[in-house]
């Protein structure tokens, strides 16, 4: 083998990277967190949150405690207790909605199956805590976020949800059909989750 010509070629490469790291944006890939933060894409997801309309989280919560998300969650991290009034009749609200984020794997299946657009994905990830058990079990009020916050996080998706909800109740079916049959113009599309079946 010749005298290290391969190694020299490699050293040229590393020199190019080293020198380039002073001025070439392609080489400057380090983000100085927490002073700079990367902008998260629209669809980014960390853990679920419950959306409420209006100002009052108790009254405006969209969740009706149908328990579909509890049933479909793969690691079974959701626990829901339905609220009942004095006579024992069910109210369309959860009394308890616990989500254990130490178990949650952010798979987003609860969001896909919710018929009422009430559970959506949050993007907060700076959740470290010293209490390994209690602080990672989020209750209903910890999970509640206003609809404006949801709109700020995922504008495209929230826009579609709002349009659908504004069209009135009983249009839950329309979520499935237009999305599934939408022939996207060209090669890109604004459609969010599609094809989800409401049964």
């Amino acid at each position, binding site marked *: 083998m010749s005298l290290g010509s391969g190694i020299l070629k490699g050293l040229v490469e590393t020199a190019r990277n080293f020198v380039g790291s002073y001025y070439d944006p392609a080489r400057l890939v380090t983000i100085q967190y927490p002073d700079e933060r990367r902008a998260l894409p629209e669809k980014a997801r960390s853990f679920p949150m419950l959306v409420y309309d209006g100002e009052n989280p108790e009254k405006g919560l969209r969740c009706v405690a149908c328990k579909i998300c509890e049933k479909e969650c793969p690691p*079974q991290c959701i*626990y829901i*207790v339905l609220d009942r009034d004095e006579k024992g009749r069910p109210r369309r609200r959860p*009394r308890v909605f*616990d989500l*254990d984020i130490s*178990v949650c794997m952010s798979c987003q299946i609860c969001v896909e199956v919710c018929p009422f657009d009430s559970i959506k994905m949050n993007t907060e990830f700076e959740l470290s805590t010293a209490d390994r*058990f209690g602080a*990672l079990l989020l*209750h209903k009020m910890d999970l509640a976020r206003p609809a404006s916050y949801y709109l700020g996080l995922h504008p495209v998706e929230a826009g579609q949800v709002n349009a659908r909800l504004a069209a009135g109740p009983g249009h839950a079916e329309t979520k499935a059909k237009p999305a599934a049959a939408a022939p996207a113009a060209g090669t890109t599309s604004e459609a969010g989750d599609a094809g989800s079946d409401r049964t």
Partner: protein
Amino acid sequence: MTGAPRAQTEPVETLEQIKSRIEAAIPGLGLEIQCNGAVPGQASLVVPPARALEAARFLRDDPQLALDYCSNVSGVDWLDRVVEEHARVTRVMDGQERVFDECRERRVPGHLEAVYHLYSMRLRHGPVILRQRTVNRVDQARVASLTPVWRSAEFQEREAYDLFGIVFEGHPDLRRILMWDEYRDYPMRKDYVEPDDYEYEPTPHDDLREKARRHYPIEADA
């Protein structure tokens, strides 16, 4: 839309033809074909463990089949089942022949199974699926090891032994592979009971909560 999911290139012969050729080549070998309700192209050959090695060698060495690549070996656990059989029976009653629908219950004893998916790298066809069944799940859970024929079965048969308890006779190194060596139970069996040594799980779910509560105090929440 594209068509229905394309099946792999199947061998030129059907499974029936393969079966008759094996039986012609190896006299006294009784094979069965088990049909596949969902994917007809993936029916399997049930081979008795006593002669499985010969059948496997035939499949590997036959020039038309050349199944030199054993892709997957998996264990399956079938519990004791009660199977209802409906039959139309003609009986004589009150001097007349009448036809009755009889429903009989038959107890099928459980067994363990080792399923082999075989392909040919040389001729690029497959799969031919072999099954070996044990006599029961209790004390006669032995089948022949096909590791001498296909080396790729070595670790996979060890895994089937580890997780199901199927003993592969003739395997060169049959010991546990995923669980530790001193482990006693077979985790993938359908009647496996999980050990009750949970770390504290705050997820307040029904039976998990009961199990956790037996070990640790849990704060009651709303």
